[in-house]
């Protein structure tokens, strides 16, 4: 079985921890607890008849990705950049932020996602998808939509 380090990054309160908890423990809590430093969880996924052990590093939220301690990002096999679809401030600098990751961490795969799709008005999701075309996927940690798919996608990219 291969192990891969995935680091989840993004602004404060975009739902990084909720996303990991939904994926690993299949739970969601509306209580907001700030992540301090880093928290590590893991889950094994099966892709193409292979088992991939995903070691998920949940980092604390930062306005600027450069504020994250480099030590936490070293040796990363893949990044998940999380935005909040309801707060433009969390994705307005996405290009420069992902470029920083590409430049400094060996061009490892980066998946950019918009969380909290459950808060979008019904019927407006496809419209929002077009508006946020720079995002690879819209997910909802609260309702679980696309969460499993997201992690399987990154596991597939890395296996």
């Amino acid at each position: 079985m291969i192990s891969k380090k995935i680091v989840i990054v993004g602004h404060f309160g975009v739902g990084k921890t909720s996303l990991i908890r939904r994926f690993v423990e299949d739970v969601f809590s509306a209580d907001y607890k700030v992540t301090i430093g880093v928290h590590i969880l893991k889950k094994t996924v099966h892709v193409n008849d292979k088992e991939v052990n995903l070691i998920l590093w949940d980092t604390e939220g930062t306005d600027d990705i450069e504020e994250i301690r480099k030590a936490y990002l070293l040796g990363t096999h893949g990044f998940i950049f999380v935005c909040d679809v309801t707060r433009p401030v969390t994705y307005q600098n996405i290009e420069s932020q992902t470029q920083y990751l590409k430049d400094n961490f060996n061009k490892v795969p980066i998946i950019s996602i918009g969380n909290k799709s459950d808060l979008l008005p019904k019927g407006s999701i496809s419209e929002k998808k077009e508006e946020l075309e720079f995002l690879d996927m819209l997910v909802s940690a609260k309702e679980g939509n696309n969460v499993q798919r997201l992690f399987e996608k990154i596991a597939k990219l890395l296996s």
Partner: protein
Amino acid sequence: MTEDEKLALLKTILLTDDREYAESITHKINVLEEILRERHRLSEKVSPIIKEQLDEFTKNIPQNLGPAITESLKIQIENSKDEVVEALYPILGKMIKKYISQEIKVLSEQVNKTAKDTFSMQGIKRKMKSIFTGVSENEIIISDLGNAKVEQVFIIEKGSGILIGSFHLKETVDEDMISGMLTAIKGFVEDAFKQSNHDLQSIEYDLYEIHLHNFHKYYIATAVSGTFTETLENELENFNLEVSQEINKKNLLDSREALEELLLTRYSALKFSNQ
């Protein structure tokens, strides 16, 4: 005898016994009333019965009420964990302090006893060892007293914190997460103190000392229990170097099974010089 006289006689014959009986009952009731009114007399009669009942009740408490009390205590503690901890903390603190001072006393007695034994063969050997190795005699005595033991070994990829292989005596919590967290702590400390050329070398945790030994691509984290002195640290480092050479020679970093077999063979046989 007239009819009236006959009737009176009949009455006397029929009712005399009853009257006496009624009188005796009235008397008894009066006595009872008196007993009930006077506390000390009542208690004379009732106390032995209550005592007997109480004794019986007390005897049966564990059987009858035990499960209910345990259950309600459990719920109570569960609901007010913080209060319980707050109440127990000072008591436990005192107990731990007492235990530690007791253990230190025992240790100091043992050290004294061993030190007094200067002219025994062992004492002379120890003195010679101290002179040649430069390690103080006290340290040798202390390390002799608490045998250090390697409990767990992790070979962890630098940076990513991915576990490459491990050895452990007992089952432990998730090793992948331990490896990740150790790497995060290591990275945090090295980063926070801006000492890029310096590495975190050990973490003390409860009864363990986690020794971190850096190599080029990975580091070896060894959890040691017991008294881990500088001499033993040196020995462990030399041992790790030997293991690392073997890993490189046999190219085991990509073969977890073979690597863990090597770790098992080497570390389970590791004995420190004082053992």
